[in-house]
C-alpha cells in the first residue's frame, strides 16, 4: 500500500505540494509514484531562478525501469532545489515525503485550490 500524507496537496500526475507559508511551497513525488518507478537513479531538476508552469514539465526522474517527466502542479519561480538529490537520488525512494524536489514561490496562491486533497488523491490510486 502506498502512503498518502494527510496534510499535503496532490496532483493527478502524482506530485505532492506542501504549503510552507502563504506564497511558498515544496514539491515532491508521492510514495505511489516512487514505488511505481522503482529504484531512482537520477533526478533532473531546474535551476533556482527558473520559472515553472502548472501542468508543464519541470524536470525528470529516471529509474531502472523508465524515465518520467515531472509535471509541476503550480506556476511560479523556483527559489531553491534540493541539492542533496543530485548525489543521492535514492533518497526519493527512501522517504518521498521528506525528499522534496523544488521550492517554488507561487505566482497565484489560489492555484492550490485546484489540487487534490489527500482523500481525493487516495481515491484515484
Amino acid at each position, binding site marked *: 500500500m502506498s502512503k498518502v500524507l494527510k496534510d499535503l496537496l496532490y496532483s493527478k500526475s502524482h506530485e505532492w505540494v506542501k504549503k510552507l507559508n502563504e506564497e511558498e511551497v515544496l514539491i515532491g513525488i508521492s510514495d505511489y509514484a516512487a514505488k*511505481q518507478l522503482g*529504484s531512482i*537513479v*537520477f533526478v533532473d531538476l531546474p535551476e533556482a531562478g527558473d520559472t515553472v508552469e502548472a501542468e508543464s514539465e519541470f524536470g525528470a526522474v*529516471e529509474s*531502472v*525501469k*523508465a524515465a518520467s517527466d515531472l509535471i509541476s502542479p503550480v506556476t511560479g519561480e523556483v527559489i531553491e532545489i534540493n541539492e542533496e538529490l543530485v548525489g543521492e537520488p*535514492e533518497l526519493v525512494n527512501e522517504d518521498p515525503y521528506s525528499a522534496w524536489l523544488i521550492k517554488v514561490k507561487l505566482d497565484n496562491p489560489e492555484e492550490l485550490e485546484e489540487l487534490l486533497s489527500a482523500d481525493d488523491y487516495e481515491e484515484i490510486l
Partner: protein
Amino acid sequence: MMYNKLIFEISQPGRVGYSLPKRQFTKYDIKDLGNHLRQTDALLPEVSELDCVRHFTNISKKNFGVENGFYPLGSCTMKYNPKINEELVKTMSFAKLHPYQPISTVQGALRAYYELQNALSEISGLEEFSLNPFAGAHGELVGLMVMKEYHMARGDFKRTKVIVPDSAHGTNPASITVCGMEAVEIVSNDQGMVDIEALKAVLNDEIAGMMLTNPNTLGIFEKDIVEITKLVHEAGGLMYYDGANLNALLGKVRPGDMGFDIMHINLHKTFSTPHGGGGPGSGPVGVKDFLIDYLPNPRVKKLEDYYYVANVGDAIGQISGYFGNFLVALRAYSYILNLGKENLMQVGPLATLNANYVRQALKNDYYLPIEGYCMHEVVFDGLKDNPHEIRTLDVAKRLLDYGMHAPTIYFPLLFHQSIMIEPTETESLQTINDFIDVMKKIAKEAKEDPDTLRNAPLSTPITRTDEVFAAKEMIFSYKDYLEYINSKG
C-alpha cells in the same frame, strides 16, 4: 567452471599473437608526428593467437540468440534468420563489390536493389522506396525529413509539430526532436487506442503530421485508422507509419491502403535479417507518389534493361554512404523470394495466431489489462494472483533459468508491470507450449517459492545484476573499471 575472464585479465606484457610485416616505408619516422604522438601507451591486451581464440570461443558459449532458444522479445520480431540468406550474401558477386565499380559491372546488385524496392512497394502499398537508411530509427529520421521537406517546399513553414500517441515507441518523439520538430503527445483511450477526440483537439495548421504504429505497441490494431488518417489529412498533415510492427499485417493489410504517406520498414525484424546486439539493421523508407522526389540520394533507376545510379535535385540529400546496408537488404530480398507471395501472406496471420494462443493460455496466470484479441504480440500487466508482490522483472529473470530469452518488460509504459511477448510465426507449437508451461510454472513459484524468483537467474554466468549500481556508476571499458577499482582502494 564457467570461463569468466576479460581479455585484459589474460594479457601478458610483450606476448604477441601476430607479427606485422617488415616496414616498407622507411622514410617516415614516427617521431615526425611531433605533438600528435600519444604520450602514454594504449591499453591493449597482449595475448597469443591460441589465448585469443580460446577466449572468444569460451565467451561465445555464453551468448544467447534465436539459434539457442525461444526469444519472445516483444516489439523486436526475433524470427528465425534462414541460412539461405547467408549463403546468398557470401557469394563473390555480392560480397566483394565496391561502390565505385563501373555501373556496367554491378548490374546484378543494382537489379536486386531495384527489385527489392518494388517488392516493398507492393507489400506496403507505397509507391517508392529508398533502401539507404541504416536501421529503424534512422528510417524514422529520414521519413520525418521527407515530411518536413514536403511542407517547406510548399512554403508552409508553420508546420513544426508531429503528433504521437502516448503508447508510441520512444524512438518516435526522439526522431521528431532530432529532426528539429516538436512532439505533441496525445492520450490513448481505455482500449489502448488513439482517442479520436484527443486527436481532434490538437489538430491545427502547425501540425506537420502524425506518427503511428499499427498494430500499436500494445499489440492492438487501431481500428479507427481510416478516420485517423482522414482527420490528419484534412488538417493538412501527413501520416507516418512506424513499421516496427509490420509483421502482424504482412500479406493482409497495407499501410498505403490505410492512408499512410510515409513509412519505414525494419528489414531486420519483418524480413528476417539477423539483429540483436546492435545491428546491422536496415530501415528502408517508402513514400506515396507525391513525395518521391524528396527521397534521399543516391537512387537506383532503370532504363529499359539497364540499371543506373541517379541523384535527384529535390532530394533531402544523402543520408548514408552509398546504398545503406546493402547486404542486409539483400538478405531481406532472399527471404521475400524464398517465401514467395503465397507464403508471405501467411506470416501476419500465423504470427497473430501464435500471440493469441499465448494470450489465451496465460490469461488465468497473468493479468490481461486489455480485453479482446491482440495482434502479433500480447501484453500482460504482471502476475494475476500475486501474494508476495513478485514483479515482472523477477518473472523475466527466472525465464533465463529455463533457457528462454526474457520478453520485453516495463514497456509499454501505460502499465506498471508490462511484459510484452512476441512469439513470431517461426516457432513450432511445441516450443510455444514449452514456453507456456514455463510461464505457468513461474506463476506457481511466485506463490510458493517467491525467494527463488527474487534471486533469479540462478544458473546463468552472471546472476541477478545490480541495476541501480549499473545505472549510477558508468563503467563502459576496462579502463573505467580500473579507475573505479583504484578509487575504491
